[in-house]
């Protein structure tokens, strides 16, 4: 299972990557896409939506399951990845790259530090798998 070093992680298996000027790119982790199986549908909130940490920012559906995606931190949705509407399978193929889901304009940079780093997330996933 792939857990890139430079990313932040949530307990709901989202990843966040600080890109530029207080912007965070958000997606779901390799563990999450693997647990869900073949993704057949992705729906994301609209650009401009203001969200608090833990608010839903989208829905991912596989053949077998429906899963909400939650905002890792407070912010405003700055961009959404429209490509996922037509090619939801990208989430299985490249969850940390092309299948990013939204870009959030982060309200409080200090909140980012409360997220898990790669090592903590690795331990979290291992504990959950037991």
């Amino acid at each position: 299972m792939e857990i890139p070093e430079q990313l932040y992680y949530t307990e709901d298996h989202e990843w966040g990557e600080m890109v530029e000027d207080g912007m965070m790119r958000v997606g779901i982790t390799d563990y999450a896409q693997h647990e869900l199986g073949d993704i057949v549908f992705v729906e994301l909130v609209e650009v401009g939506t203001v969200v608090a940490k833990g608010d839903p920012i989208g829905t991912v559906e596989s053949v077998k399951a429906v899963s909400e995606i939650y905002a890792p931190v407070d912010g405003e949705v700055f961009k959404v990845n429209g490509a996922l509407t037509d090619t939801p399978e990208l989430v299985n193929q490249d969850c940390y790259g092309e299948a990013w889901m939204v870009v959030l304009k982060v309200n409080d940079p200090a909140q980012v530090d409360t997220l898990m780093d790669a090592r903590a997330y690795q331990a979290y996933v291992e504990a959950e798998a037991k």
Partner: protein
Amino acid sequence: MRTPLYHEHEKLGARIVDFHGWEMPVWYTGIREEHLAVRNSAGLFDASHMGEIRVGGKESVPFLNRILTRDIPAMPKNRVLYSFFLNEQGGIIDDLTVYCVEPGEAYMLCVNASNTENDLRWVIGQNREGAVIEDRSAETALIALQGPDAARIFKDYLDFDPDTLKNYTFTVLATVQYCDIMISKTGYTGAGGVEIFLPSEKAPGLWSSLVEQGARPCGLGARDTLRLEMGYPLHGNDIDETTTPIEAGLNFAVDLDKPGFIGLEALKRQSGQGVSRRLRGLVLKERGVPRQGFVCMKNGQKVGAVTSGSVSPILGTGIALAYLDKSVEENDEVEIVVRDRHLKSTVVRPPFVRAAGK
């Protein structure tokens, strides 16, 4: 509970889930890949969790003819029929396949895993004729080899061409490695192929050999999307004790001219009066995934609910089976309520995907 193939699934790295008390593979690498393998080449399924009930003796024919919806005395040797156990109201206790092993003397019933115990209790309770009933579920494994390359793979390995069998017939093949195996030209995928009954202890050997020969292991996930593409009902989802074969559009498996089977009077009544709802196919015109329980609307009125739904890997669109009010007709537009969205769909007659060889 585990099938005799459980350790094979583990070795192959399957994702195991609970299926009515059975630890079964839901997928190995992914539902979509496995689904496409069955449509395009060949897939292998463990269906050993299903129940096998032997019914024998001179009384087997009158007994089975009373508890089943098909004409049992007319079954020739090696014929297979799809049929039902019905309650007095015509509700479906289970759907099953009947195998005529020896006309007038020996039959095998293959029933759903989730219903085996209940079926067995019911069958024994109904047996006033005195037929000999035997549960062979534990010692019998069932492997389904399905897809356009299934026959070739089987022939290359066991030197018997299943394509010499007609659909819905079977034969018993004596093999050195696996003893007597029963090869049935049936399946639950619409992709062609065979279902193989064999002694449980022989199953791992046949399974791993067929995998080596190129059949792709497939889990219950693909089994479900494949059957749904064909519009085959799943007991517990699309049919149950509250629905009848007439409502489900399964009249072909009910012989209404046959006297005296359980449920006949109710079905005749329903057949005469007409049904208030029917199981229909729905194809989504928008993106989304219909799922069991989702409400169907037409002109602002609730007209039914989805019983099975998924995204068809072949069509790339959402498909569903749903009981819809009798006023709804083929080609009508019906909305499926997917959470807060109303998605447009068209009423169709399944199969959603054409069966192999048709």
